[in-house]
């Protein structure tokens, strides 16, 4: 009998505000340790938190994008635990009534889609950073991150494989970046995931779950979930029982270990945060935030397919980030005659070259206007598509315009029938046997003549004109 894996995910997303959740300290990454702190985020006695309006708006925007309910009144609670990177001895979070509830995200699964429920998004504050490596008997604490606003996005246990979990995370990651509510840089810890994993026989009630912590890349998340599901299946098949616990995934060893010590300490004793009155937002404010919602990846993909006639694949590639989509639309605006040609050249040629160079579209040496300039020269027959690829290489290297490269290298396509006719006559004179055979019915030789003429012009002859003239001259 088969096993079914059941996965629910909790994602902590750092909201990209300029200041912390409850004080006016900067959130800029990479500052000298403890230079972005104040009495509020250090938990000094008598300090009062004041909530950041921008963090509220960005959380609401995210809620609207996942079709969730926005609670017009929500509350803050204290989650109590002791750890040196949490100076107050509690984290301000939303426990009883979160700002956002009951949404969903549709994720691609195989050829179709699957709806993953999102239980809630609540606002909370981040803790500081502790460092242990290379230290004897002590730990070092940097509290610059203490108080940075987070959204915790909690899914329903709706995923049934590690691949579905990854598809959900990628979709969510793309969404928060499109909305510009977070930079989502996983290496900087701006998008962190905890996974609740259990196994069961299909149709039976949920099994006991283990919570996996410390998952900070898509690859590790997949590994960790698969490892954990197998561990539980083996345990049960050997007559054992899964215990509810927190496990820490060790990416270097590819396995997880129990953090039972942490379990005992985790009795959070939530209670209402007395320093903060309820958060009230009006229906009008929510409507205004909804009105400012940018086009979402799914809508953009659909529009690219319909408006520009792109394939599903190209539309997907060009809507991976908002920057790519904007770049593509700038390209189409500059070369409106052929949006499909724009997509092909951007997705296959330009992005391929940028990828190889390890560069991002934002620092492409060829901008949308410049690429449009190249496509214009293909359009008007100045160069062939084949030559254009060489021109693009040169443009990438030098930053010159297409026209400058074509001019400097003398790559102009020869479309002049007089010149092409002369070349064809030369080729025919040099290959009398083949001309004879062609005239006697060996049609296949046509390709040979095209090749010879193109070779004689180093690929610069206009292929359409060559074809047309060859047909006529070979008949004579």
């Amino acid at each position, binding site marked *: 009998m088969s096993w079914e894996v059941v996965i629910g995910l909790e994602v902590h997303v750092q909201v990209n505000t300029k200041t912390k959740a409850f004080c006016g300290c900067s959130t800029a990454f990479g500052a000298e340790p403890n*230079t972005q702190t104040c*009495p509020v985020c250090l938990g000094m006695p008598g300090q009062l938190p004041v909530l950041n309006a921008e963090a509220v708006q960005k959380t609401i925007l995210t809620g609207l994008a996942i079709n969730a309910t926005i609670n017009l009144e929500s509350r803050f609670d204290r989650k109590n635990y002791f750890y*040196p990177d949490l100076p107050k001895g509690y984290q301000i979070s939303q426990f009883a009534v979160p700002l956002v509830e009951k949404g969903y995200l549709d994720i691609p699964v195989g050829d179709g889609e699957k709806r993953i429920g999102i239980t809630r998004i609540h606002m909370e504050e981040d803790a500081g950073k502790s460092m242990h490596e290379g230290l004897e008997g002590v730990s070092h604490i940097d509290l610059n991150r203490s108080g940075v606003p987070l959204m915790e996005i909690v899914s329903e246990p709706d995923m049934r494989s590690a691949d579905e979990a990854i598809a959900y995370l990628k979709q969510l990651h793309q969404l928060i970046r499109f909305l510009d509510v977070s930079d989502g840089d996983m290496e900087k810890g701006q998008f962190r995931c905890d996974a609740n994993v259990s196994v069961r026989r299909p149709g039976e009630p949920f099994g006991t779950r283990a919570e996996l912590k410390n998952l900070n890349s898509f690859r590790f998340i997949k590994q960790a979930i698969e490892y954990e599901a197998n561990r539980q299946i083996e345990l049960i098949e050997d007559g054992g029982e899964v215990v509810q616990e927190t496990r820490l995934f060790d990416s270097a060893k590819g396995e997880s270990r129990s953090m039972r010590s942490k379990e005992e300490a985790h009795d959070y004793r939530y209670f209402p945060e*007395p320093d903060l009155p309820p958060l009230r937002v009006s229906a009008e404010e929510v409507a205004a935030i909804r009105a400012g919602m940018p086009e979402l990846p799914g809508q953009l993909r659909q529009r690219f397919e319909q408006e520009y006639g792109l394939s599903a694949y190209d539309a997907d590639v060009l809507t991976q980030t908002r920057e790519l989509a904007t770049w593509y639309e700038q390209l189409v605006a500059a070369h409106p005659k052929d949006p499909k040609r724009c997509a092909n050249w951007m997705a296959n040629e330009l992005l391929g070259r940028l990828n190889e160079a390890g560069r991002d579209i934002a620092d492409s040496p060829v901008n949308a206007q410049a690429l449009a300039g190249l496509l214009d020269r293909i359009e008007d027959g100045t160069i062939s598509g084949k030559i254009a690829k060489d021109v693009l290489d040169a443009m990438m290297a030098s930053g010159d315009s297409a026209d400058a490269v074509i001019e400097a290298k003398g790559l102009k396509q020869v479309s002049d029938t007089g010149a092409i006719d002369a070349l064809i006559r030369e080729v025919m004179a040099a290959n009398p046997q083949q001309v004879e055979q062609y005239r006697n019915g060996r049609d296949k030789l046509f390709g040979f003549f095209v090749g010879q003429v193109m070779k004689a012009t180093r690929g610069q002859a206009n292929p359409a004109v060559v074809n047309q003239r060859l047909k006529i001259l070979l008949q004579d």
Partner: protein
Amino acid sequence: MDIDVKNVAMLARIRLTDAEATELGPQLERIVGYVEQLAAVNTEGVTATAHPHDMAMPLRADVVSNTNQRDALQTAAPKTESGLYVVPKVIE
């Protein structure tokens, strides 16, 4: 009402002797029992009070208003090194 005084003390990081725990148990129970009288009030149809003041939360504009005060703030710390707080080793 039976309070696990030792567990409560552990969660609050307060060290208690057995004698203190024995003494505090009944005292804590009396306090909780006093507050529990509220449970007798019929609150049906009454909206839960989120906060004693009936006010909405004032919000703050997202503008950096604090500057680096590390040196002053760290005078309160028992130990620092290169700008970092030094604490007893936390075992992960």
